[in-house]
């Protein structure tokens, strides 16, 4: 053979070689197939409910099983409201933890903190739900009522911090916040670790205090990555089922009162599935389709944001 200088092998791949190659490719393609099939099957199976209700499936808030009237609006609202509460609670805590581990903590302390925060992700969601429903719900109602007493005469805050239920948007929000803290923390920690040491040292050498250094170099540098991390956390919080199903209260209502009982898309599906007839099952799959679309949009945006920040860092 004349090609002796070729750096790559130029011989034809053996059958075993190409078989393995196609197996790998197949596993990769499987991801596309599954995502495609989810979209297709969920749409066809929920079509009955969509055609029965029309667009009012999304704009009507009345979910009346007896009269076969299925409007998902209050559940969409509940999903967004509890996820928003979760995000508002999780952002400062996650960023605090990530900043502490990357910028403040001594080297030997970093790994133990990381492991401890990851423990939050080890506790299964059903255990969080069990604890939330049987242990947390009662004392937190008293706590919420204290907040209500403080704010009840203040115009806007009075309606947000209204009369409290033990199982409420906020109870779900707190549990969801705990569940998404690990993912937001680890993703923001990763971007914060890529801040060039010269930037940080330069700021410190100019006399900035550590907080000024963080505000001036670390946060601006990792802003995009943090936004992506928060959005991924938001997607998780919206899709979390069992914990929400156990602590959100199971009341289909749209209320600005964060301490009122509500319901979220995944919680309704989990709670109503076993007793549902054909049309209701179709409507529940419609809820799942709605939830899938919502989380898909959030995840698509989040992943593009994360990718963009990674590309920018690579340059």
């Amino acid at each position, binding site marked *: 053979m004349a090609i002796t200088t070729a750096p790559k092998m130029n011989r034809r791949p053996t059958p075993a070689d190409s078989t393995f190659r196609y197996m790998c490719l197949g596993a990769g393609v499987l*991801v596309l197939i599954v995502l495609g099939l*989810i979209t297709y099957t969920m749409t066809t199976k929920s079509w009955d409910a969509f055609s029965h209700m029309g667009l009012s499936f999304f704009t009507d808030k009345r979910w009346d099983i007896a009269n076969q009237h299925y409007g998902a609006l209050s559940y969409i609202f509940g999903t967004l409201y509890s996820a928003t509460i979760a995000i508002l609670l999780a952002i400062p*805590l996650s960023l605090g933890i990530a900043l502490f581990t990357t910028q403040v903590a001594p080297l030997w302390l970093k790994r133990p903190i990381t492991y401890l925060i990851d423990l939050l992700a080890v506790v299964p969601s059903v255990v969080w739900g069990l604890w939330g429903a049987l242990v947390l719900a009662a004392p937190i109602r008293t706590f919420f009522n204290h907040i209500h007493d403080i704010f009840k005469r203040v115009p806007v805050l009075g309606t947000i911090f209204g009369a409290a239920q033990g199982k409420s948007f906020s109870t779900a929000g707190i549990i969801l916040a705990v569940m998404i803290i690990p993912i937001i923390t680890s993703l923001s920690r990763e971007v914060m670790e890529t801040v060039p040491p010269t930037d940080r040292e330069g700021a410190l050498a100019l006399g900035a205090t550590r907080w000024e250094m963080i505000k001036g170099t670390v946060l601006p540098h990792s802003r995009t990555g943090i936004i992506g991390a928060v959005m991924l956390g938001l997607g998780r919080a919206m899709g979390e089922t069992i914990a929400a199903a156990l602590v959100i209260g199971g009341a289909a209502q749209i209320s600005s009162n964060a301490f009122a009982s509500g319901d979220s898309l995944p919680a309704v599906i989990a709670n109503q599935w076993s007793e549902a007839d054909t049309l209701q099952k179709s409507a529940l799959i419609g809820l799942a389709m709605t939830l899938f679309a919502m989380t898909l949009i959030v995840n698509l945006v989040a992943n593009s944001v994360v990718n963009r920040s990674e590309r920018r860092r690579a340059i």
Partner: protein
Amino acid sequence: MAVTTRISGIGGGGQPTTRTVAPDLRAQKSWRRTKSGIMQWLMGASIVVALLPVIFVVITVIGKGASSVFTGFPKFLTAAIPNQERKIGPGMGPAVVGTLLITALATAIAVPLGILGAVYLHEYGGRSPFAKVVRFLSNVMTGVPSIVMGLFIYVIFTLNFGYSGLGGALALAFLMLPIIIRSVEVMLKLVPTSLREASYALGTSKSRTVLTVVLPSALPGVISGCLLAVARAAGETAPLLFTIFTVNQTNRNVFSGANTTLSRQIFSNALSSLSGAQGRAWGAALTLLAIAFLFTIIARIASARFSAKR
């Protein structure tokens, strides 16, 4: 003192700010220090705040679950589930068996596929446009809510073949798949290119190189990533509601017939107000938590050995 005058205007990491006039220095300096101290203290405190719930949960689950699990040990882990919720006492046998079988089957499906997918992404696809699409969508798939995955399997599998452990395992496997792909790809990135080149130089084919050189040297990291995915899957509940239904007797046949798991039992018992059912829920929670922690600790040890070797 002159030095302090100049630096007091800098708060934006080297970027010139509009504040050019230096105000009273000594007061400013001490406030800046205090503020920095407060912020660092708050960061430390956020760790404590985040850990409080998990400490509470673990203490509560041990406190309430230990009496159920350890009374007449190991009866709780083997006895059948009582048909009446109000009956006090063990057990969770069928759920323990179901959890182990279904999680094992899900692992058997997801791990090979996940590793193959990651090998495709890192060893074959690389930076090609198609691989980029697969990588992007695999990350997106990580965010598919577990309940949606459960309904998906219900529609394509359970409607045709009926309730079975396999259906639940399929749902869990598809949830694990993108997690495994991502973590294994990260591990493959850590394998030095020189190892692959050395193998090619010996005339080894690409598939053999991947199977006998690349994967073995990434093995501890791969195991760690897979175990973390297993720990997550073992605690999943939502997809199982539609795919395995629930039973009170042990069903060892994972391929047919309704089944049950610890997580499924916790969910249904948590909705009950009867103390017997709640007691079993706490016992099941303790068992599940122990399983999840066990897998996580093994994964940590594996990855610690991996990074020590590097």
